[in-house]
């Protein structure tokens, strides 16, 4: 549809949080083999706020999200260029401990992916991985994480049961509990509600509201209303580029770019 015209720069109207930025993406490019999936992304993700990434399918939202905790590392022929600054270090810099990095970021996937173990073991998995064996610490963390994920009351009597026996919505909240169990700074969510029914979705959205402020949340979503409801800032991506990034209200009510406007009003995609 669009011919290769010179890319226009991203339009920013960011709502900055008091604590500054948690992640700072600078001149970021990414190639899968020969095809470039991300072009010149510059994006400051605000600490303690919820940032939504929207855009048509295949525009690179998941790719960008996975770059934030280097989940892309296992993909062959992946090449990146640019920086992603966390605090004062570049997560793609030399000598970065990927494992330690990931421990600072929880991640929730599109499809609930509880492990084939008990609910309890699922939640404390990040701690076990970290070598924590003390029972009291594990118990405490489990309860805290499940409470944060608004799941505690539903499962507190069946912690030892298999996580696979839960409903889809419960499983996804379990995954969120797992994602925040190790008390990460950032929580990455890739379409966390796309496999859920409206009621479960609502619960997750409420949860995101509660978590706002404690965690920096980046959420990828196809659901415009959801983005509008839960996020402080929204980034609109299109064909691997960040077209517009800024205050959610502005994006949805008064977008600065034509493409953004077309997209949020449902005219293409």
């Amino acid at each position, binding site marked *: 549809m669009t011919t290769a015209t010179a890319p226009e720069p991203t339009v920013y109207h960011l709502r900055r949080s008091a604590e500054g930025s948690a992640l700072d993406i600078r001149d970021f490019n990414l190639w899968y083999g020969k095809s470039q999936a991300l072009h010149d992304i510059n994006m400051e993700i605000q600490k303690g706020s919820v940032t939504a990434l929207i855009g048509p399918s295949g525009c690179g939202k998941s790719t960008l999200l996975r770059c934030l*905790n280097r*989940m892309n590392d*296992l993909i*062959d022929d992946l090449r990146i260029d640019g920086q992603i600054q966390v605090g004062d270090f570049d997560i793609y810099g*030399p*000598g970065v*401990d990927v*494992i*330690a*990095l*990931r*421990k600072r*970021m*929880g*991640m929730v*996937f599109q*499809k609930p*992916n509880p*492990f*084939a*173990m008990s609910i309890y073991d699922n939640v404390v*998995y*990040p701690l*076990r*991985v*970290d*070598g*924590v*064996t*003390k029972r009291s610490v594990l118990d405490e963390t489990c309860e805290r994480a499940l409470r944060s994920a608004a799941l505690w009351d539903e499962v507190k009597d069946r912690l030892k049961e298999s996580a*696979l026996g839960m409903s889809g919505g419960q499983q996804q909240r379990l*995954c969120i509990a*797992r*994602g925040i169990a*190790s008390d990460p700074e950032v929580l990455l969510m890739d379409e966390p509600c796309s496999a859920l029914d409206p009621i479960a979705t609502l619960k997750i959205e409420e949860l995101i509201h509660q978590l706002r402020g404690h965690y920096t949340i980046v959420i990828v979503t196809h659901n415009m209303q959801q983005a509008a409801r839960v996020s402080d800032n929204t980034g609109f991506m299109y064909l691997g580029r960040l077209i517009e990034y800024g205050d959610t209200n502005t994006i949805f009510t008064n977008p600065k770019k034509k493409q953004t406007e077309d997209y949020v009003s*449902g005219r293409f995609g």
Partner: protein
Amino acid sequence: MSDTTPGGHSDDYGTELRAQQSSDAIASRLRQRDMKTRASVKLGEKVAKWVITIGGLMVIVAVLGIMVFLFRVVAPMLGGGEILGNVRYQLDTRQDTIWNNGDEFQTLGTVVAAEGRVITFHIPTGTEIARTQWDFNGAEVTAVAGTLARDRIALGFDDGTVRFAEVGFASTTTSRRNLPDGLRDLDARDRELDGRVFTEVGTGDFRTLSPVVSLGESQAISDSAIVALDYRIGGTRERPTLSFATVDAAGVLRVSRSRVTVNMMTGAETVDTTTVELPSLGLADGVSVTGILLSGSADRAIVATDDGVVFRYDLRNFDNPSLAEQRRVASEGVAVTAMTFLSGEESLVVGGEDGSVGVYFRLQTGTDATTDGRELVRAREHTPMPAAIVDLSEAQRQKEFSAVDADGNVWVYHSTSDRVLFELARSGDVTTPSTAMIFPRSNGVMLVSQGGEVEAWQYRDSHPEVTLGVLFGRIWYEGYSEPQFVWQSTAGTDLAEPKYSLVPLIFGTLKAAFYAMIFAAPIALMAAIYTSEFVHGRVRATVKPMMEMMEALPTVVLGFIAALVLAPFVEEWIAAVLLGFIAVPLGLMVGAFAWQALPPRIVLRYDGLPKFALMAMSILITAWLAYRAGPWFESALFDGDFKAWTTGRIGTGTPFMFIILLPLSYMAVAWGFRRVMGEFWRGRMRSMARHEAGRLDALRWLVLLLGAFVLSYAVASVLTLVGYDPRGGFVDSYQQRNALVVGFVMAFAVIPNIYTLTEDALNSVPGHLRAGSLATGATPWQTAMWIVLPTAASGVFSALMMGFGRAVGETMIVVMAAGNTPIMEWNIFSGLRTLSANIAIELPEAVKDGTNYRVLFLAALTLFIMTFVLNTIAELIRQRFRKRAFQL
């Protein structure tokens, strides 16, 4: 979402109707499309369905067919025998019959009556063929005995003399042209003329049988009547040694040995007899001798009494015989009424007045109770007969014997398999005492009563020596000190007892598979985990086909490499090999730590194939180091000679246990460290840069390793103190062809199998689980161990089962490298024989439909069932696993 309207309707109907119509249009369009594709797809589908169904059915039919075929070959072995016919008639004598003999074709029989009348008759019809009258010079026969072949007998007389006689048969072949005239038809098969019987033998030739009857000169042995006698012929045909033992009425026992020398020039025979008197039995009053037995080489004599005791004389020193042993074989007052050796003279069968039938072996037990350290041991107890045993007669080529009791029952026993093969049905008078003989081919019994009545049975039992108990149970074989599982299907002589226990073979099969799995399982699992979880796709793409190519390696090649290269090498460098088992894993770990400690730039640069090559290098280097350090290692731990050490003669079990316990000790030490210092250590590590932490971690590892060494040595020492020594158990004296070599090489045959299946199982673990784990900050190793492996557990387990099944069925490697000794010990340094190797080795030489042949088929069936069960279990587990993987 989208506001384009389907179709191009521009009329003004309500939206509902429009929607209705458009959906109709879509439906009809779909239907049209369906119609178009259906014909070809349908045909293809049908063909495919048929091909698949037929193929599948054929596979099932083939498998079942093989099973049925194997079973049909095996089945006759476990059935009983059958009686083919039975005849009875009265001979022309009313005198007591003292001896009888029959030829191996059951054509002619000869009976010697007490007054010296020798009648030869046609067995099927009872027609008299020849008659001879022996002149005993007025003496009366008081005892008689014959050799195993029954054609040479010795007669003892009331005047204390002994005479040898011959009652045999001569067999020649007459061609049809030379057939004499005037033949008399005996029956449909046989014709007779002048004491010769002609039997057509298919080729147009006639087997010609005639009796050979002669009586020798009398020799004076005693002053009183001979009451018991035994007679044996040993030595060579040219220079036979005739031995006989006598008991006279005065209770004096004598053994005589006659050397017959034939003068080459004149052809004259000179008989040179020496007689020695045996030490007295010292029998109490009223106790008398009921029988005497002499061994073929006349080195021992057994005397039985009516008080239930047998005496054994040691005659090895002929001039100075000694009473070696006295053994009670029946309770007091119960007479031993019959005795015989089974063919081979290893077993002594003793029949009692109470009908009991026991078998005794003369075993070297080192006992002080006898003069020669041997003793008679009751090894078998056969089914007793209803009344006193009056006659025992052994078969010539099998461990079979016939027994007659006082009630006239005639039973045929097989000793090895502890079976009563036949309880022969008598059709005539059963009250007159009779004696029986088994025909030389063990296919019939002839019974002659004191009154001259003959009864003969023909039977067939092709596999009397096999029962399920023989195949799968412990049997007390001749010459063994206890019941055992033994496989020894053939031996140098006919007289040996065939031993058909499949248990040592099953054991060997499992042992080989077990040791193969010890090597294969860790390597294959590690390799699978490594390629599926750790390496880049590019490396996997080269490594996986390489591993799978190993599968194409012909096992016979692996086998001869194992036998001709590896076995001698391992034998020579056993210490280096042992060291290698420690050194290679250590080397790999050292390499890994070294890698961790490298500066990050280099790590990033050389990740992938170079790293892989480096690991291979580290294996090679440590292997070389182990090879160089081998002798040093051997002298430090095993007194410089590992093979001598394994025999248990030198050194203690400590060094070996030290090595074995190392991995366990390391785990224990590492676990202890984590418990005590874990939190603190993690804190330290986290505050450091990656490569610095790597160095520190390497240091920690070294310390732990040192701890493991110390712990392992301490535990091994304690074990030695407690008295535990692995030697004699899973370590024992070293043989060149051993389970270590076989296990190691067979591992190469099964690794590709296990590897491929495991890799597939691991790969089929959904990626989102892996991602979920990695995202929490788990290392790839933790992810592999805690998430991927448990999820794929059943697939991995089934891969292991498949590998085990493959190892169980593997043939060529074991044939060539396992030494093929069917022994039952776990010793890793000894050989073994597997079911499959056994079949490969013995089947070419087994006589079709013979016992060995059928037992080998049973071995095949067993093998088939074993692999079938293993594979089925593996498959079932895999199915279950698939279902579960689907749910995730």
